[in-house]
Structures are given as C-alpha cells and as structure tokens.
C-alpha cells in the first residue's frame, strides 16, 4: 500500500473520530460562535470599578511599550515568570483585575484571566473587544 493511500485511510479514521468527538464529547466547543464567558466584561461594566481596578495588558512587551492603558501592567505567557512577581507588587487583594489583549478576535486575555484566577486572583476578568475597544472609546 502506498504512503498516500495509507495517509488517506488514516485521514478517514481521524475524520470519523473527530465526528464522534464533536457529537458526544461533554466539552466539545460551540461550532457557531465562541461561548460567552462569565468572566468577560464590557468597558461600561468596568466604569463603576474606577479607582479599584488593575489593568493587565496581555499583549507583547513591544506593543505594551508602544501604547497601553494608563497604569496597566504587562503580563503574558511568553514572560510569565518574570512579569508575574511585578504584577503581584502592584496587585492589592480585593482589587478588580481586568485583562485585555489586542481585539475581540484575541482570546489571550481570557487565557490570562483564567490563569490569574487559578493563581488565586479571584476577581480577574477580561475586557470584551480589548485594546481596540478602549481606543475607540478614547477613554482618558
């Protein structure tokens, strides 16, 4: 049997297995739209938290250096071990932490917020629309 024929058979079996996963797996993803996360907040929702909010920029250090929300701290997966202690220096227990990344299509803020929660930061959320939304609102 040629390599390509074998590869085709492997593909067919994989497609079948993927179909079963998509049909019955309890943690299968939503196929039409990304699920709404309870930790997702809009910019309007963050307004009442003014004065008690720590912004976390999950974009790259270069993007952060170019422009960021005032008083935000940079925290991303790439440099987590170096940046997390700096985050802890700025974080006060009881503070709301809102993570943002570049845009709505960016899922990174969700990931960082989840990791912060797992690290003991209970009030960790992520911003719907991210940096793009902040810029559009032209918030001071």
């Amino acid at each position, binding site marked *: 049997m040629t390599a390509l024929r074998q590869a085709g058979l492997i593909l067919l079996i994989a497609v079948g297995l993927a179909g079963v996963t998509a049909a019955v797996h309890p*943690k299968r993803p939503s196929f039409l739209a*990304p699920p709404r996360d309870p930790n997702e907040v809009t910019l309007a929702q963050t307004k009442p938290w003014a004065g008690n909010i720590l912004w976390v920029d999950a974009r790259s250090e270069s993007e952060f250096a170019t422009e960021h929300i005032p008083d935000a701290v940079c925290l991303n997966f790439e440099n987590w071990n170096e940046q997390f202690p700096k985050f802890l220096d700025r974080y006060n227990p009881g503070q709301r932490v809102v993570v943002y990344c570049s845009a709505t299509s960016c*899922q990174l803020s969700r*990931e960082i917020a989840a990791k912060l929660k797992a690290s003991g930061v209970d009030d960790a959320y992520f911003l719907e629309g991210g940096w793009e939304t902040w810029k559009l609102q032209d918030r001071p």
Partner: protein
Amino acid sequence: MSTVTQSIGGRPILRIGRLLLRVSIAALFLFAAIAKLVDPSSFAQQIANYQLTPWPATAVLSVFLPALELCVGISLLLGRWESGALVWVAVLLTIFSGALLSAIVRGLSIDCGCFGRSIENTGTLWPLIRNLALLAITGFLWFSRPRERSSQ
C-alpha cells in the same frame, strides 16, 4: 536513501535506535492528542489565540487535530501504515511550525497550545525549535523506513 536503509538493515543497534525514535514520536503525538481531547473547548480557545482562522473553522480544528494526532500516534506505535503516518507527522509539524512562526512574526505573545492545558507557559520560540528537530527526525524515519510488501 537506499544506502541509509541498507546501512540500518544491517546494524541491529541502528534498527533499535530507529525503533526508539519511532516510538518516541508516537508517544509524543499520543500525549498531545489525549491532552487536547480531554478538553476540546479549551483547545479551541488556544487555537483562536493564533488569530488565523474564523471561529467555526477553529472549533472544527479543535476536534479534528487531536483525532488525527491520535490516529498517527497509534499507527506509529503499532508500526502499521508507518509511511502514511510519517506523511501526516511531516504535514502536521510543518503546519504547526508555520503557525508558530507567524505568531512570532506578528509579535503575538501566546502559549503554544501544543499539549492542550497539560503543559503551559511554553511560549512559541522553543516549540518551533522542537518542531524543526522533530521534522528532522521524521525525515530520518522516512528515508530509513523498511520497504513495505505490496500485499500490505
């Protein structure tokens, strides 16, 4: 090619070395597949971080990629349809490396997602280097594979 095959065919130590490499690649793919199949929804979010595909395609990939990795891993482990499995290993590693490279070029600070949530904080550069090394091993396995009988 034939020189490599003949050379390995005549040396038990090299045959064992090849077997170990094949089983190692199989174990890596099986681990990656199972880690992702535990929580496809979470893996979909990791794919979405690359910002390369629209959500419906991302969701489909989150169930298809682990399934393919599982089939490839089992095939390599059992030594059945090895040539076909090696084709997929090369294709998958090339696609994964391309995605990682594009993330690096675009300055995305994301987690690889190579092993679902089981191994995090790997960034993108080291997984890219690892993938290139695995591609080299795959090339060796391909060119040194035993010739299959026509009845198989």
